């Protein structure tokens, strides 16, 4: 098939070459991030601290995008008009698209001494979060994990012990059923399942399953472990009385004290605490991992990607990236959000987060899960993102209707195989 360059077409369509950056004493790096509601203050603080230590670099923020999705769209648009920022923060599952579009710079050349780099807190498992097929394209900046939010008052009312919250699926579902039985207006469990297939990955990971093989050629989520994950979804529906709510309805119910247990991302912890206030005793427990040996949990959150191919800027950009993802940056992120540290030194060295966890016990759950951190899997190819939506909408049938989990999962896996093979 003959392929045509879009750059020629784009040059004809768009009067390219916006403002060439003026040569200045200091190096300017332009940074774009998404979700100002979560990251705004964090980004400002990191940039200010960085510029204090590196007076030769000036960090300039573009106006942030509302969501990760908008952010990636915008970078792709800007790439067509040749006006990309030098550094972008994107959702960890969207690093892939920037790599496939040849916008993200491979980072291996910048890591001179891998051992010293690991020493600085960039361990192999944390680096893995920013890799696409083994190539390092991003540094993890903020990591959220699936956690269990619960209303300790309702748990106590239902006869459970809020201080000894279940750590396995059977007990969790039984407790959900007990809470559900408290009244018509009270619901037991809500397993958040909207927007992306992230929580499906969490269910599969909990049983130690895989979505695809290492080479990303074979779909694996319909093996025995995947089937246990699908059966789990059906149990929420059948045994724990999970209501067919959408995300915001569930959120409102939980905050109003009418939902006992909500499984969702730790990223919402700060917002959840604000929304609940003093209405009830909000607590957070670890996400049950059924297979303690091979189990893993998908890591949500953001990664930092280098876009600029200008050598002088690359040097400054790399310094900034390693600062933001380094122990100091990670500590700022953790203190101002519900994210887990994405730097091992920040987690281990008490000078960074020493007293924080003692004072904020609800943050402990996501920290305890760091050992299980796995990638936020993105399916390969042009249909990769679309497949995610297909998985979402199909598996909702298991939660909302009386669809048989095994049959639904097998049919879904066939569809996904066919889509990916196209």
């Amino acid at each position: 098939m003959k392929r045509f360059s879009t750059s020629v077409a784009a040059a004809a369509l768009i009067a390219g070459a916006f403002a060439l950056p003026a040569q200045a004493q200091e190096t300017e790096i332009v940074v774009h991030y998404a979700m100002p509601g979560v990251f705004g203050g964090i980004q400002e603080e990191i940039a200010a601290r960085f510029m204090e230590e590196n007076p030769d670099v000036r960090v300039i923020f573009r106006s942030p995008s509302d969501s990760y999705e908008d952010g990636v769209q915008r970078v792709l648009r800007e790439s067509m008009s040749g006006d990309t920022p030098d550094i972008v923060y994107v959702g960890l599952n969207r690093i892939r698209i920037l790599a496939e579009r040849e916008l993200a710079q491979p980072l291996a050349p910048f890591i001179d001494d891998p051992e010293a780099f690991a020493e600085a807190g960039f361990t192999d498992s944390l680096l893995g979060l920013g890799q696409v097929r083994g190539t390092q394209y991003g540094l993890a900046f903020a990591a959220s994990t699936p956690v269990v939010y619960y209303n300790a008052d309702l748990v106590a009312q239902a006869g459970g012990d809020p201080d000894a919250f279940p750590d396995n699926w059977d007990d969790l579902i039984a407790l959900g059923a007990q809470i559900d039985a408290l009244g018509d207006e009270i619901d037991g469990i809500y397993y958040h399942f909207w927007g992306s297939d992230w929580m499906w990955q969490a269910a599969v990971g909990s049983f130690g399953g895989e979505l695809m093989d290492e080479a990303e050629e074979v779909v694996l989520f319909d093996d025995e472990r995947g089937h246990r994950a699908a059966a789990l979804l059906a149990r929420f529906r059948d045994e724990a009385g999970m209501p067919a709510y959408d995300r915001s309805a569930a959120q409102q119910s939980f905050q109003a004290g009418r939902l006992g247990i909500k499984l969702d991302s730790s990223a919402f912890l700060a917002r959840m605490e604000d929304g609940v206030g003093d209405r009830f005793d909000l607590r957070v427990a670890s996400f049950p991992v059924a297979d303690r040996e091979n189990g893993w949990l998908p890591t949500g959150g953001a990664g930092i990607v280098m876009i600029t191919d200008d050598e002088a800027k690359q040097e400054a950009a790399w310094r900034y990236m390693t600062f933001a993802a380094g122990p100091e940056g990670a500590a700022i992120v953790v203190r101002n959000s519900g994210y887990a540290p994405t730097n091992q030194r920040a987690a281990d060295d008490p000078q960074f987060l020493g007293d924080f966890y003692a004072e904020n016990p609800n943050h402990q759950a996501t920290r305890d899960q760091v050992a299980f951190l796995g990638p936020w899997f993105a399916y390969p190819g042009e249909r990769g993102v679309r497949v995610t939506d297909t998985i979402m909408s199909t598996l909702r049938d298991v939660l909302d209707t009386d669809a048989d989990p095994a049959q639904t999962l097998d049919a879904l896996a066939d569809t996904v195989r066919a889509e990916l093979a196209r």
Partner: protein
Amino acid sequence: MADPAPAISAVPAKQVLKQAAPRNEPSGGKARLRDRLAGIALATPATALMLALLIGPTLAVGFLSLTDWGFGARSFAFIGLDNYAEMAGDPVFRRSLINTLVYVGVVMPVSVALALAVALLIQGGRFGRTFFRTAYFLPVASTLVAMATVWQFMLHPNLGLVNEMLRLVGLAGPNWLTDRGLVLFTLAGIGIWETIGYNMILFLAGLMAIPGHLYEAAEVDGAHRPLDKFLTVTWPMLGPTTLFVIVITAIRSFRVFESVAVLTQGGPGNASQVLLFTMYRESFVYFRAGYGAALTIVFLAFILILTLIQIRVIDRRVHYA
């Protein structure tokens, strides 16, 4: 997007041209040339704008629909009609097409009929005209995205106002936005709520334009009952207005997007997937711009066919005063 307003004003414009034509006949060739040049000069800005803003982009989209271009990709290949072939076998597209047609099928007749009823009641009412006019028009003046959020609170299955009220009278309210069989009709209800005010204003304008002497004449001819007056005078005289309202409502409801994007994201399980939302997901979320372009072309074709049918077929039966 196609704006039907010119279609209505085209009729008088034609008449004006016919009347103006004879005056130009006797003048010499030079004057005629000058007139023509002036005409071209006057038409150029509008034509240029239309080419640049409507026709150009449409052609570009048509071109893209024949490629496999991924949003932001550096290269593309021509794949002929593959995108259209894929559409034929794509269950999500089929679902969103059917859903859109159902949505239009509900919103268009109901909102036109209700708007006409409201307009007649306000026109015939003795008091509170301004109040009712404003009340019905408010949804039009507000931002749908913000209003959708309000609807979300009202329709909450457990805490929402609607189900709380139903509970007061002993009914268990459904999950308005997550029941697969219901969600599309809930959205249609919001669509109707949003459209009535706009249609009502158009009908009110149409009603005011009906000369009073026609009613007197009808009275003389024996149409004493309100229904007779409505059938012999109001309804025929409202023909052009009704045609305009139907066309614009159909097009507006074909474009349903905000309520879906805010309230349901096409879910649960594609139950509220509609054309524009699918188009947006494919192009900008899945980054499949070529396929998204093909969807756009199909969408435009539907709008065009719909408009043509309505103008051609109904136009013949409409009585222009």
